[in-house]
């Protein structure tokens, strides 16, 4: 495991105070041009989404040989087949038949799950058969092709690697960095948590009429919590957003706080979960540099894994029983975004645990409804041309950092 021997001190160089952040990232307002200008979006597709490592699946979504998932990624004009081969390895391929280009696995919506029975996938158009590890296995009426180099007609593979059970792909023919290099200190900071134990997932998505960065930025700060979440998290006062960390293109921070004014039903469900070994708060399971002092009021870690992924690691300390939750923001075009939010729990053993998880999930889903309420209005406001800049306070530093990272990639 990557964490062997890792201590909080090993990542001390990533730590930043608010003063450090002001000094390093500046205090000036940040331009909204990269949100407003459709031409920037075209650059982002080429220089970011087709160059960086993108999370597309988790290994525990595809537990068995033959399990697959297809992801439609408009940002790269791609349909991506992620499949666990006969050898147990997860690979990614363009979901494109090498005969004439049909989709090999038909899809519905943005994500399609399935299992290949005999470790093959078959294109329905003319029946070409591919192994789940890529090669072209059989072609009907093969002898009627005057020329067919079937050894070179396997599924077109996409670079794919796994970190802590999260499956990433890179569309670049020759990625400049390996996944481990790309994740860098982020990979070290977040590694060591037993993510794969939290196989119960409540998954939501919606298509937002906004630029992907508007959605991303709205989930990248805690400044909005007392206002936007006054309904679902009343009295979530005195939150402390601190422990800022900069890690190359990635960044992170920590939310501490007394938590919400707990309503009676939440209290009942929470106390039920907190008395079970598998759902109780587990600050001890956090990686060493996250909440290094093991403060009891730790809520969750709030990072940005550039360009479009957030893992909120909570270890049961924030929302009762919740192991972690993730957000991802997929551009569909300049002004449309697919948002995906997933709440992860360890599996409920009893029916009572399941009910309690439904409650916690519902509370969090409701908070997400409050978050997403701002996004289309924010984008309209920016598109109106009324403001040219965003004013950013210390606890919006993830936005400042992401905007700067974006500029760096676009200038490369």
């Amino acid at each position, binding site marked *: 495991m990557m964490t062997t021997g890792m201590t909080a001190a090993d990542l001390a160089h990533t730590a930043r105070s608010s003063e450090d952040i002001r000094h390093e990232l500046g205090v000036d307002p940040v331009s909204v041009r990269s949100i407003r200008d459709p031409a920037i979006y075209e650059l982002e597709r080429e220089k970011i989404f087709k160059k960086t490592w993108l999370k597309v699946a988790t290994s525990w979504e595809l537990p068995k040989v033959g399990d697959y998932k297809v992801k439609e990624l408009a940002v790269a004009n791609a349909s991506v087949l992620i499949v666990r081969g006969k050898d147990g390895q997860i690979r990614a391929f363009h979901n494109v038949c090498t005969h004439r280009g049909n989709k090999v696995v038909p899809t519905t919506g943005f994500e399609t799950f399935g299992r290949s029975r005999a470790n093959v996938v078959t294109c329905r158009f003319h029946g070409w058969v591919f192994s789940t590890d890529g090669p072209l296995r059989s072609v009907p009426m093969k002898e009627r092709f005057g020329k067919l180099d079937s050894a070179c007609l396997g599924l077109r593979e996409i670079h794919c690697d796994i970190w802590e059970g999260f499956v990433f792909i890179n569309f670049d023919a020759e990625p400049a960095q390996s996944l481990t290099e790309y994740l860098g200190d982020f990979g070290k900071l977040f590694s060591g948590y037993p993510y794969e134990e939290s196989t119960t997932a409540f998954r939501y998505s919606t298509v937002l009429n906004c630029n992907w960065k508007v959605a991303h930025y709205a989930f990248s700060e805690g400044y909005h919590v007392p206002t936007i979440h006054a309904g679902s998290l009343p009295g979530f006062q005195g939150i402390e957003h601190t422990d800022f960390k900069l890690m190359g293109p990635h960044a992170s921070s920590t939310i501490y706080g007394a938590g919400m004014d707990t309503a009676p039903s939440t209290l009942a469900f929470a106390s039920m979960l907190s008395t079970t070994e598998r759902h109780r708060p587990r600050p001890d399971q956090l990686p060493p540099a996250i909440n290094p002092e093991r403060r009891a009021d730790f809520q969750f870690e709030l990072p940005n894994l550039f360009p479009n992924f957030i893992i909120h690691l909570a270890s049961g300390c924030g929302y009762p029983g919740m192991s972690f939750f993730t957000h991802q923001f997929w551009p569909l075009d300049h002004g449309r975004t697919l948002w*995906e939010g997933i709440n992860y729990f360890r599996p409920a053993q*009893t*029916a009572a645990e399941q009910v309690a998880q439904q409650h916690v999930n*519902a509370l969090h889903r409701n908070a997400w409804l409050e978050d*997403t309420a701002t996004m289309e209005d924010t984008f309209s406001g920016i598109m109106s041309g009324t403001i040219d800049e965003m004013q950013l306070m210390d606890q919006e530093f993830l936005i400042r950092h992401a905007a700067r990272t974006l500029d760096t990639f676009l200038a490369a």
Partner: protein
Amino acid sequence: MTNPILPAPFTDLAPLAAHWARPSENERSEIRWSASADDFKALYEAMMPRLDDILALLSQHPATDMPEEVRNLFLLACAFAEASPHHELYRGSSAVPYSFDARRFVRTDGDVAL
């Protein structure tokens, strides 16, 4: 809907179960979205005082594979788990105040029935 059977001592909750208990989140959401403040209040006042007892009973059953009457109670408890914030936090509003349209939120995992 005819009243579902419930385990003792919760048989009196059967009319509530008939209205609220459904196996999938989408179905329960449809019911919640059409509920009034009084509906939320009635559910809350019937369920909240007995929640610990209900959870104690449900703790004795695995999350999958329950006898039918326990499953009916379980589904009612799921509906309550999702509805209680509307009474406790949202003043009986069926929508989360100042929120995005909940109908545009898609449960992406196919809303597997419990």
